[in-house]
């Protein structure tokens, strides 16, 4: 053939890129400059990076509140102006520049609240370490979501799996006085929730969203009922779980900032890092993962190649349940002394947002969960130091971050094509 048929469609119509980025940048630049800068407190904000147990000290970071934010504001305005100019030339700002602006804005916000607070100092090290701790159940939950959705089953029941795991871990670890027994029982509880989801979604073709929502309500009801009728009758016996110790790796855990994050975790914390890697490696580097993704994208094609679609889905949903159940046990075996009603507090839904924000990739979901954990922990710390912002607004922050992250920043990210659609052979 002498013809060329492969050239992509060239947009010869002059259509400027969306105004979204320049507008958002301009707005945050003005907020930084005026609200955080000119109207901010002139006191210095103090960020400590080291703790007393660290191997060596890193000096504290000190920013004069007003001055720093005026500089940040001007910088952001410059970038916003540059992005308007780029748009007029039909180009867009590179992603790293957008990320840089976001970091500047968050930093500016931190400096503003800290300099205006009653205590003008926070520990950045514990802010980050705490963020990871709060993110642990989110990470497990989102891995469960990734595993299910990659295989084509929408898992809204993450919340129920977390809650079921938390409850079962508490009661089993209390009775057996063994935290590891609680951990295993939590995995089984998560798997049981998944089995119901798998049975109805895959075998009986019930709408997956509805099954998921119903499961959440069901688990909430059962655990709430058993909490009042069993646990509260004899809290000594049924609701005082043995805890998983925090294992600090000698030497490494004394590295400032990174040490506590990576090397001073409970067993579940270390399991989290392992699970993220294994799920990522499994999904993208192995035969198993190729088949799972094929089933989630185009089940019929997978079927014509001899892959058992519904069996693959079934096992993936079960595995997802085990992982989410283990994540749930973090509440009662590590974070909190005992089980209370609704202990998971909607984190299963935030995990669902992390799945989408992380673009159905385990590592992306991990990063997204960390971001939500960060927002959550920041809110806690800022309430403690007493900021000019009412604490009720601060409490909204993790959810605002979730909404903006999923709605604004993700844009048109594309999930597995067959997620939510049952596969029926004709």
């Amino acid at each position, binding site marked *: *053939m002498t013809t060329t048929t492969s050239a992509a469609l060239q*947009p010869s*119509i002059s259509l400027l890129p969306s105004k979204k980025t320049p507008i958002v940048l301009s707005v945050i630049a003005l907020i930084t400059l005026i609200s955080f800068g000119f109207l901010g407190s002139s006191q210095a904000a103090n960020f400590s990076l080291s703790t007393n147990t660290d191997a060596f000290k890193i000096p504290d970071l000190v920013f004069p509140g007003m001055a720093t934010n005026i500089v940040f504001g001007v910088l952001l305005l410059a970038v916003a102006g540059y992005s308007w100019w780029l748009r007029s030339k039909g180009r867009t700002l590179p992603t790293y520049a957008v990320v840089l602006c976001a970091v500047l804005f968050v930093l500016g916000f931190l400096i503003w609240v800290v300099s205006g607070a009653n205590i003008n100092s926070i520990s950045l090290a514990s802010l980050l370490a705490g963020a990871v701790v709060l993110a642990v159940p989110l990470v497990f939950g989102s891995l469960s979501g990734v595993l299910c959705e990659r295989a084509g089953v929408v898992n809204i029941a993450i919340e129920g799996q977390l809650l079921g795991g938390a409850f079962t871990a508490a009661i089993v670890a209390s009775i057996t006085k063994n935290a590891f027994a609680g951990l295993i029982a939590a995995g089984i509880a998560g798997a049981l929730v998944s089995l119901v989801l798998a049975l109805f979604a895959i075998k009986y073709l019930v709408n997956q969203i509805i099954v998921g929502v119903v499961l959440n309500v069901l688990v909430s009801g059962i655990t709430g009922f058993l909490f009042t009728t069993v646990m509260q009758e004899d809290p000594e016996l049924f609701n005082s779980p043995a805890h998983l110790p925090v294992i600090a790796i000698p030497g490494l855990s004394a590295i400032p900032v990174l040490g506590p994050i990576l090397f001073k975790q409970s067993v579940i914390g270390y399991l989290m890092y392992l699970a993220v890697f294994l799920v990522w490696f499994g999904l993208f580097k192995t*035969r198993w993962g190729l088949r799972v993704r094929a089933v989630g*994208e*185009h089940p019929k*094609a997978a079927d*014509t*190649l001899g892959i058992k679609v519904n069996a693959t889905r079934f096992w993936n949903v079960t595995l997802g349940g085990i992982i989410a159940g283990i994540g749930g046990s973090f509440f009662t075996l590590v974070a909190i002394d005992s089980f209370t009603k609704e202990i998971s507090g909607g984190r299963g839904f935030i995990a669902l947002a992390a799945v989408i924000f992380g673009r159905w990739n385990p590592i992306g979901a991990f990063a997204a969960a960390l971001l939500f954990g960060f927002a959550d922990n920041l809110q806690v710390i800022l309430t403690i130091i007493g900021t000019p912002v009412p604490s009720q607004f601060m409490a909204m922050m993790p959810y605002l971050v979730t909404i903006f992250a999923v709605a604004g920043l993700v844009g048109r990210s594309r999930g597995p*094509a067959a997620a939510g659609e049952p596969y029926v052979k004709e």
Partner: protein
Amino acid sequence: MKLELRGISKAFGSFYANKDIDLVVDNAQIHCLLGENGAGKSTLMNVLYGLYQPTEGQILIDDKPVQFSGPGDAMAAGIGMVHQHFMLIPVFTVAENIALGAEATKAGGVLDLQVTRKKIREISDRYGFDVDPDAIVEDLPVGVQQRVEIIKALVREAKVLILDEPTAVLTPQETDELLDIMRQLKANGTSIVFISHKLREVRAVSDVITVVRRGLVIDSVAPETSTTDLANLMVGRAVQLNLNKEAATPGAASLVVRDVSVVNAAGTTTLDHVSFEIHQGEILAVAGVQGNGQTELTEAILGTQPVTAGSIKLDGLELVGKSVKQVLRAGVGFVPEDRSVHGLVTQFSIEENLILDLYDRKPFGKGISMNLDAMKKNATKQIADFDVRTDNALNPASSLSGGNQQKVVMARELSRDLKLFIASQPTRGVDVGSIEFLHRRIVAERDKGTPVMIVSTELDEVMELADRIAVLYKGKINGIVPGNTSREVLGLMMAGVSQADAISQADHVKADAEPVEAQPVPAQAPQVTHKPKHSTTAEGDAQ
């Protein structure tokens, strides 16, 4: 490898899609299954490929009975299938798609795509496929995706390759290339079952043609059989292949489209400065391979597709920016390309479907109530006029066959006084008998003086109906040519060759431009496409 189907029947409930089918495919034979849509060809092949279990009958390979419980068994027995809708995962690379289900792995189940890439290159070189193992499938043109499917079968060492309507999505040039590939495969000892309803291709490449009608084998004939005889066998009665319509008597330009561009939500330009006009009393056919902007063009006129720039005027009235209802009221009749999704509410009765866009107009609608008598009268009349085969106008539209559903859509759209009639794929998936009928109605509408726009990916249909042909390529009009332009020129233009180049190239390839009907099929068709790079080694490798 010799493949035999003996007495195969496949029933869905009480309905037999296949009844007592006998079929023998010899080693290195291209065996064509010819039949209309819905004749049971695909069902039969799905039985052969293990996707369906036969209700009765036997499959024999080299005279030994075999049983397939799933596609895996069929593949293991050396049967490969290229489905009409490709079974490729769009977001995977070529190598991942080909590896899937038969992955080469290192220790611990870790994928080893290097092995697959090497195999792809081998096959690609042997047949001159030119497929990049690391390309993402959804970025590839349809023709290349089809080659990926063929490689997929060959990697699994298929000795019998089933091609289910493989040419439906291809340009005429790509079709010729595919026919060429089929001949090469045959030369290498692969048997091919070629499913089609396109007579020209079937005659060009087959060794044997088996005609299937309503689930039964009607006859097996030689490829030299005339197109008319084949069509008659396929439909079961004498068919007139030529419409023999009168020459058009175009009036004033009625629909004037100027510099219309559409940029979709993903930022892709799907229509790029499209300009044309349609005169009263003429049929303009828009030809092109699927996905070159046809859908967007019709929807832009109707108003369901936002127009980025440009103007569309109907008798001086600007349609851009008008609501769909306003456009319909302006006298536009619209037959969408997918009748069961956009043309009908299939759960509604035929009667209701016949007034879907007239429900609020007299005599059907009055205030908040509907005039059921008028609906009934209308249904009775339209069903008679358009020969819709049903025993009750209150049956749901889903109970009708494809052809009858299309008649309902056409009847509804033509029942108003039109200033413009647009029909997208008016006869897709419609039996030959109904095609003839629908074509006549379209021409009749033209003869009433209505400007008509037909969008079709079927070149036969375009050539049959058009007074003028506009060729769309990548969202641009690649030329507007007279209705009697040759198939070769149109094919080249659909592939993006400019009009002037297309004419000179077509003349070059075919010294004598002859009408399609009388086209003699030489044993070795002229080579339009590239020869295999290693044809000698390929011969040596033949099983």
